[in-house]
């Protein structure tokens, strides 16, 4: 099998699919021409992510990593969510084939893009937090 059971579970039964109408912030990364786009919606109250949803156009692992990444950040504070890494997402899925690792980076980037928008809508990114957004400059295919 190409994918682990966990990847298949999150692909066949993805958690948190959908939109949040009154989202605090959204983040969209990837592009249709490369074959994957992820859009993450966050609902944030008192610096805590109380809900996360996603929509993804992409392969099995793109959908599974979106599902896992959103599951990993719901209930977390912004500071905790900022420490999410693509490696952690891939590990939580019992690994991804090497050629699919970029999907986990996209998932991290989608979450970070949404958090960035949240900061920007609420007075700007604190200097101390800027380092967490360096990942948004990374090319998904470099992973």
């Amino acid at each position, binding site marked *: 099998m190409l994918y682990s059971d966990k990847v298949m579970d999150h692909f*066949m039964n993805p958690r948190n699919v959908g939109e949040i109408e009154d989202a605090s912030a959204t983040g969209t990364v990837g592009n*249709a021409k*490369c074959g994957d786009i992820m859009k993450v919606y966050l609902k944030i109250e008192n610096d805590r992510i109380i809900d996360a949803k996603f929509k993804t156009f992409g392969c099995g692992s793109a959908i599974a990593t979106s599902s896992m990444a959103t599951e990993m950040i719901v209930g977390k504070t912004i500071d905790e969510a900022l420490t999410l890494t693509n490696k952690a997402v891939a590990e939580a899925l019992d690994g991804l084939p090497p050629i699919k690792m970029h999907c986990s980076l996209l998932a991290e980037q989608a979450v970070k893009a949404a958090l960035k928008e949240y900061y920007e809508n609420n007075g700007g990114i604190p200097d101390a937090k800027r380092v967490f957004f360096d990942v948004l400059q990374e090319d998904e295919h470099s992973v």
Partner: protein
Amino acid sequence: MNSQYSHRVYLDHAATTPVRTEVSSVVSETMDSFYGNPSSIYREGQDAKRLLEESRDSVANFLNATGSEIYFTSCGTESDNWAIKGVALNHFGQKMHIITSSVEHHAVLHSCKSLEKIGYEITYLPVDSFGLVNPEDLKRAIRENTALVSIMMANNEIGTIQPVKELCAIAKEKGALFHTDAVQAAGAIPIDVRDLGVDLLSVSGHKVYAPKGVGALYVRRGVKLSNLLDGGAQEHNRRAGTENLPYICGFAKALSLAAEEMSDYSLRISDIRDELIQSVLDRIPHVRLNGHPEKRLPGNVNFSFEFIEGESLLLMLDHHGFSCSSGSACTSGSLDPSHVLLAIGLPHEIAHGSLRISIGRDNTKEQVLGIVPVLEKVANRLREMSPLYEDYVNRRETTYEICEKCLNETDMKK
């Protein structure tokens, strides 16, 4: 046939076919009883030699060739490599130009690429939106130093059948040799090498219900090409290596069965194909048929599903018991979707959502049409998840820029 898959519907016959029981019996009988080396002069060897030559005549008969024009190889890829590199190397220093099309199998395209590296010039002819090569383009591209024109008989992804006879006549008029990759065409549509006029033609065992690991190259009498495999005197000194007799016998059996059954098979399968195409287009919105509506292989169906990525589609179909294939980047192991779908002008995002269904002789109409409601369900589900579909429904323009890496990859392939 293997019963472990009896609950599944195999719809990927363009990838490979199950071995027919009539063929596997011939393979195992040959393996059990005729172990001699056809090059040996004693009884066992000569018995093996007789079977080998009978098989050769049988394959020749299938193509309307003569036995001495058939060379057994290890697969379709070897046949393509040999035809192209063999002709090219034989013209080294004289005619160093080769013409092919942009929708060939990688066995042809990558053979041409490797010749480019050692100084050959290659022209890749474009195709129209159905995947057809325009004979006028060939007329314009062909030159005094064109050694070979290689255009496939039928495409493996979209099933488009090329006007090989017409293209071949153009090549001959200019003194170039003509090769056609007939790997997908064999057993599906009639092939007559004399009528087509081709100099070289590749076929493969495992696309015609014979095992993997055997193929053949037709080389018209008098056509010269360099050897790829040097060694013993097998195959008239042109392809060294002890012959894979059991598979060769199985291959010959498969082709003779295909010849007997072709007209019935082709009618039955193309009828299922057309019903499937109509049913999907009627029931599922935002789907387009890739390839030519009429000039296509009987068993080939290729759709693009907008707003959906192909690998996801395949995985969900697999879950429901259907085995199909896709031209999406994620299933190709590269960053780019299928070169064939890009060559017929599909935008990247549409090419990523392609689905190939290739129907075979064991499929019933009920089985094949059974995929339609599943496809409808799966397509709906994936579209519900797709931000592209959301943009479409909300009438938002989707403007996602292509990333530099993908752009470079695409340029490199052009």
